[in-house]
């Protein structure tokens, strides 16, 4: 019997949810949505993986190439909302060149940030912190996590 802030309208039109949403859809995220980094396919991936979110119909196809323990290249294709696409774009950017252990740590931290864990969003996430506002939108968590779940699975399958 929670009483979220919108149940009764604020008397003077201030509206915290609206400002959260506006903060989320900032230029950085829209830029990654419109011009995703690492979008495409690899000729000879070490790992290829498809993940879907049946609730929204979002799909991601991932391809990874390793250099020993290091994630050398990563590409994705797929379809989805601004949040899922920006997350895929920013995550692949952030993980490239990292060791599988480092990458897994970042993914874990990212997931905790999305779930709203306090203090999870530290420096290691870099630009990904722009997505921290998703934590207040539980229904969008699957969008934010589609790429990170897929990446975690792909990394695990390499080890």
């Amino acid at each position, binding site marked *: 019997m929670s009483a979220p802030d*919108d*149940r*009764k*309208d604020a008397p003077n039109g201030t*509206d915290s*949810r*609206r400002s*959260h*949403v*506006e903060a*989320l*859809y900032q*230029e950085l995220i*829209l*830029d990654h*949505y*419109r011009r995703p980094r690492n979008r495409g396919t690899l000729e000879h991936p070490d790992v290829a993986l498809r993940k879907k979110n049946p*609730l*929204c*119909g*979002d*799909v991601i196809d991932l391809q990874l190439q390793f250099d020993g323990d290091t994630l050398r290249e990563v590409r994705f294709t797929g*379809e*989805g*909302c*601004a*949040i899922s696409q920006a997350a895929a774009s920013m995550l692949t950017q952030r993980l490239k060149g990292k060791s599988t252990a480092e990458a897994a740590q970042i993914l874990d931290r990212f997931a905790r940030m999305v779930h709203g864990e306090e203090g999870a969003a530290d420096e290691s996430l870099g630009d990904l912190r722009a997505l921290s506002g998703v934590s207040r*939108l539980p*229904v*969008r968590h699957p*969008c934010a996590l589609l790429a990170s779940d897929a990446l975690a699975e792909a990394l695990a399958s390499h080890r």
Partner: protein
Amino acid sequence: MISALPRSEFPLLAASPRLAYLDSAATTQKPRAVLDAICDFYENDNANPHRGAYALSVRATERYHEARARVAAFLGVGDPDCLIFTRGTTESLNLVASSWGRANVGAGDEIVVTGAEHHANFVPWQQLAIEKNARLRICELAPDGALDLDRLRALLGSRTKVVAFAHVSNVLGTIAPVRDIVELAHRVGAIAVCDGAQAAPHLTVRFDELGVDFFAASGHKMLGPMGIGVLVGRRRLLEAMPPFLTGGDMIEFVEDDHSTWNRLPHKFEAGTPNAAGAVGMAAAAAVLEGVGMDAVRAHERELVRSAYRRLSAIEGVRIYGPGPADRSGVLSFNVGDVHPHDLATILDSHHVCIRAGHHCAQPLMRRLGVSATARASFYVYNDDADIDALVNGVMAAREMFSRVGA
């Protein structure tokens, strides 16, 4: 356009004056009269119907019986014993596919559905076809999303056993030409199964005149409570069908090695009935009759006309399905490259509730060539202010996304 029923009669809407609830195709808000009817049942007449030998149980039985008569009258069903209370449209359609279907569909037979069906009227038939080695045939839609009678005619043949279709599409708002479909189905000896989930709340439904063999609807989509719905069927078919669920109330005699079944409607109502739910659904029907289904329809027509006109004037907005004159109160659309989920989140922050996704109609999404749409749907409590909020929210989303060029 003011609302057909004042928001003040809906406690949730009254408590949130700025909320633009535009997701009634998913579920409707509940008027005070419906909540009162449910509580009145529990506070004054609660007992297990059919089973008791005391006055309280007789009252419960009568209330349940009255509820059946009321809902039957609302849906134009002359023989209330042919109205089965179920949990909702999904259970109703599963009942037909399982009970009638397993008994009547065999290998090589054909089941025809349309490309616009809700999963509730698609997956049960698909699974029946798989189980029975029958063939599921999907009638593709006309370019505007309407049911294509010529295509349907061409699909039907002597192997067709079932033609299953939505009276009103929950995505496109298209209204099916029910009598034409029934005629085509009956001509080849198939039964016509009508998914009325989006029809019962919005149109005058006269089951006896429609000619369909089965008709399904949900209480929660027509101002009633969750957990209750109906299946209406032709007596001849219902009597010939094996039961669906078995247990208490639906039996006549239970011997150690076989059982016989109770008469209609009980044969298809195994277990303790949801009498309070039926009473709530009947109260909802009474509220709608109070407004008048013609007035309900006229009100939605106005709203949808206005929303259609104003939304389509926004650059980048694409509305799916037919023009505003031919549709029920549902609008599915997309806004440029703003993904429907992002749109819904942004609209939500403007207190506008719409739905985004596949709307339980993945086969239709494939046919529209999209993975999702945004959907606004209207009902008796909506008014111009709700459309203002929708239009303003859509424009805000467009602007937000246009800060960064493609």
